[in-house]
């Protein structure tokens, strides 16, 4: 029993065990330092897992030594290795970033609870990603969701609306989880197993109403979690009123993990042989993705609150991923996976910039951004670069995403979809450009609560934020790690799904 053999268990076990320890620390710096340390350990573990999977192929870890399908299996292929890297990477950046921001936004006495909840949330997200057991997905999804309800509610100290936002999030998230578990139940009824690989084997040839209903429940349940239009309504308020660090963490990871779960169920559990899948692609995912791309972008254009704007932009970006999945081709899948990772990077950086602004100005409405270039140049340029990445400017990861997506559209003989991607990117130009104009061209306000001497955000925030911005640029040029892995992951998923 070497440590290397137990490596797949670490991302789940370590934060889960570490979380209660935060409560033992003195409120303030200690819980934060502990959580940051854990996040780095996990990032290292995940990096090791990714390297291992990339070299040696699929890893199957039997929890407690019980073999599947009876026991719980952690099954890591390239697809979830990629998502593990994203989630743990964002955590490793956001946790150190959080200290100043949390100190300003949350009662110091609550800080142990806050970091504990963050670690539990991280546990849940990593667990959802790593597991190869369908019911285990539900369990971890609930662990992640419950902790994030609490985290969102902690924004109430600065804005009471966080409470209603958290409540709505709670109700909707629970509905989604319920639908998901109903779907699982139906599948269990049909097959008698909960292991994903086993489910796939036993679902072959099963084409009855029960399985179809199960599919529909799972799709809608996960759709709610990933804020698929029109079930996105919980998301804008939750992201807008949550504490800034929570927004940055959840926006970059939570919906991405849900998208991964959707892909996993579509391609690994049901497979391309499942006849209803193609109907669902063409009649649900494709229209929902396209409508989401446009409607949410247009709403973002008119938003007066930058965090809400970013939240709506997230809904639009989810639309891109759904569009990529809906092609049902390897290229489309690769595009969805690449964008999943890339969007995590850019949204994380953008929400961190918003956190810096909120830290100094106490406001995340547009007017706080007037003349920001002169007050907080580093924050401004971080926002600009990651905003350009969101638009898809060459030299950033956003360009790689759009490129893959357009290529996949052409490959799938849906050239019009490629045009729509470009068209909705123009909307992104508008909503990002609007903020850039405020920051760069307007003078800072002369009077009112936002006037006065404003310093740049502290280094402990600037450095992690710029690490993520640098990743935006670095992976825009060196696509081997993101797009290369996504290509391979898509190929592996397609072959496991029984496609070409």
């Amino acid at each position, binding site marked *: 029993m070497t440590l290397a053999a137990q490596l797949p268990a670490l991302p789940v076990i370590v934060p889960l065990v570490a979380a209660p320890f935060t409560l033992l620390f003195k409120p303030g710096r200690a819980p934060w330092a502990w959580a940051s340390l854990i996040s780095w350990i996990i990032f290292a573990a995940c990096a090791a897992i990714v390297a291992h999977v990339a070299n040696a192929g699929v890893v199957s870890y039997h929890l407690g030594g019980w073999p599947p399908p009876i026991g719980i299996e952690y099954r890591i292929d390239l697809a979830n290795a990629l998502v593990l890297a994203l989630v743990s990477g964002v955590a490793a950046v956001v946790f150190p970033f959080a200290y100043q921001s949390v100190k300003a936004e949350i009662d110091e006495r609550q800080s142990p609870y806050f970091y504990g909840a963050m670690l539990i949330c991280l546990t849940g997200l990593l667990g959802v990603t790593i597991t190869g057991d369908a019911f285990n997905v539900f369990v971890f999804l609930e662990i992640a969701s419950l902790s994030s309800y609490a985290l969102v509610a902690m924004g109430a100290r600065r804005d009471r609306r966080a409470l*209603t936002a958290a*409540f*709505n999030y709670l*109700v*909707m998230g629970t*509905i*989604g989880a319920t*639908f998901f578990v109903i779907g699982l139940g139906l599948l269990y009824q049909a097959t008698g197993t909960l292991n994903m690989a086993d489910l796939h084997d036993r679902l072959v040839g099963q084409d009855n*109403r029960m399985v*179809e*209903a199960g*599919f*529909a*429940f799972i*799709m*809608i349940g996960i*759709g*709610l979690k990933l804020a698929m239009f*029109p*079930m996105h*309504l*919980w998301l*804008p*308020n939750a992201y807008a009123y949550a504490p800034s660090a929570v927004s940055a963490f959840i926006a970059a990871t939570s919906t991405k993990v849900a998208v991964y779960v959707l892909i996993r169920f579509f391609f690994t559990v049901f497979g391309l042989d499942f*006849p*209803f899948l*193609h*109907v*669902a692609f063409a*009649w*649900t995912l494709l229209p929902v993705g396209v409508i989401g791309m446009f*409607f949410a972008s*247009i*709403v973002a*254009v*008119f*938003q*007066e*609150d930058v965090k809400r704007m970013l939240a*709506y932009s997230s809904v639009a970006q989810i639309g891109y991923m759904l569009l990529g999945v809906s092609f049902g081709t390897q290229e489309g899948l690769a595009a969805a996976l690449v964008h999943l990772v890339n969007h995590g990077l850019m949204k994380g950086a953008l929400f961190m910039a918003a956190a810096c602004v909120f830290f100094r100005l106490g406001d995340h409405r547009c007017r706080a951004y007037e003349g920001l270039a002169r007050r907080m140049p580093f924050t401004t340029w971080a926002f600009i670069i990651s905003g350009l990445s969101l638009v898809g400017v060459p030299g950033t990861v956003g360009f790689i995403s759009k490129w893959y997506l357009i290529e996949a559209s052409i490959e799938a003989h849906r050239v019009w979809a490629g045009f729509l991607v470009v068209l909705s990117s123009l909307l992104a130009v508008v909503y990002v450009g609007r903020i850039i104009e405020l920051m760069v061209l307007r003078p800072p306000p002369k009077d009112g609560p936002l006037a006065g001497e404003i310093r740049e955000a502290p280094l402990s925030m600037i450095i992690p934020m710029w690490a993520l911005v640098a990743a935006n640029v670095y992976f825009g040029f060196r696509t081997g790690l993101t797009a290369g892995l996504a290509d391979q992951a898509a190929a592996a998923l397609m072959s496991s799904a029984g496609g070409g």
Partner: protein
Amino acid sequence: MSANSFLAALLINPATILTVGAALAALLPDSRAGLRRPFALVFLAFSAVELARLGLGDYGALTLFGAPATMIRLDPLSRIFAVVFHIAAGLNIVYAWHDRSRMTVFASLAYPAAAIGGVLAGDLVTLFVWWEMTAVISALLVFASGTRASFTAGMRYLAIQILSGVLLLGGVALLFAETHSFAFGPIPLRDGAGDIRLSALLVFLGFGVKSAFPLLHNWVQDAYPKSTISGTIVLSIFTTKLAVYALARSFAGEPSLLWIGAIMTLFPIFFALIENDLRKVLCYSINNQVGFMVVGVGVGTASAVNGAVGYAFCNIIFESLLFMAVGAAMYRTGTSKATELGGLYRTMPLTMIFCLIGALSISAFPLFAGFVTKGLIIDGVAEQRHFWIWLALLFASAGVLEHAGIKIPYFTFFAHDSGKRPKEAPPMMLLAMTVSAILCVGIGIYPKPLYALLPYQSAIADYAPYSLYHILEQSQLLLWAVLAFALLVLFRLYPPEVPSTNLDTDWFWRVPGRRMLAWAAGVAQALWGFAWGVFTRRLDRFIARVYAVHGPEGSLARSWPIGFMALATAIVLGLALVLAFISKLISNT
């Protein structure tokens, strides 16, 4: 067209050799700027050797659109122009030795290169390419002085030169449609029935713009004097002479050229007499001189064309000698205004002597270059019994003496003493002027080598420039003209030197024309504004509608009550279940 023969023809073409040389000279780094002009001279010598080595004949045969084309045609008519262009380019490079700027060095080699390419072109397409090259590269020279005025003048100049190219291109295209040939030979302006051919007319006008036909001439006085000192000299040589060559090639014997040429010789005299800027005076003199050549081409007999071409050869040398002398004075004093110059003979005696030699040459005094070729033109007119044209040329010759032969040296070096005591011109300027002056006198005394270059040898064989009749006729003319000048000055009737701006015909398109254009632009702007207004009102209404739905208070962006959210989820689930129910129907169809 085979790529190999094309490349081979490019390699032996003096024009491409010079263009490459110009580019290389310009690419020399600024730390080696002093090497640029020597470098240019080396390439010029190389090109001249290549020209001599080639000998008469056609080179670089190509096929364009199924019609033959020739990149290089070296026959006696093109050879004499190529030779004199080489001489002039060399003199200019030496003259402006002090000017090492990248752009002027490039232009003063690449511009002659383009003119030589045009002269050597054996077909109309090749001609067009070099024709446009001259336009673009010479515009660099107008821009070279870098002032606001030179910029706007350069843009006007460029527009007119490009217009000439467009006319030429249109004519070439129509000609090709009619004859399926790009032949660059005689192009009859009228067809068999005596009607004007549009194709030929377009080519004719294209040539006409560049040779500065009356009313198409303003660009000369507008652009040339605004260039730098050396730039003006380079400009004064090539464009108009290339056009004269093209006219001689395609429209020799065209009767309308007689009248056009006669008017060209006459009208600039009056402008030149009242003009204060001496460089502008010389620009008017270009019009006048080209007029003589155009008349020679218009007569069309072998000896008259010989005269036109030979006169072009000599004119290039003595006209640029005059420009050089005035330029040297301007280089030392900073002005070329008659009112601000005068009395410079004391300190610039050599320049004064060279200026006088140029003046005597342009006035066609016996023993100078003008005399031995101008007689050919005037004789040709007389032989063909064009009485009025003949009379006009005599009058114009007297006028040349007044404005170029007397006014230029008189107001620069004599007249009232301006009090300026500048140094003598720099050595390299003196060198260039010396060579020019020696050529002027040498050709005047011993014209045989020039006559050997003329295109129609049979017509020149028994021509004797120094017959008694020629000397008497010319001397009478000149003496009476000198007398007239003396009397005018004596009785204070000669137009006084006044610093003024004289209006030429370009006033009509600079002032009313500009108003017209401004009016048209205003109308277009108003129409566009109206259309744009309609569009933006529509757009505003559209955006307002989008905002009503998507704006912060719109139904899509509002924070909905939780029951609604749950309901939406239920509806979507219902739809998904219905879809699952009917999926077989869908996938079966």
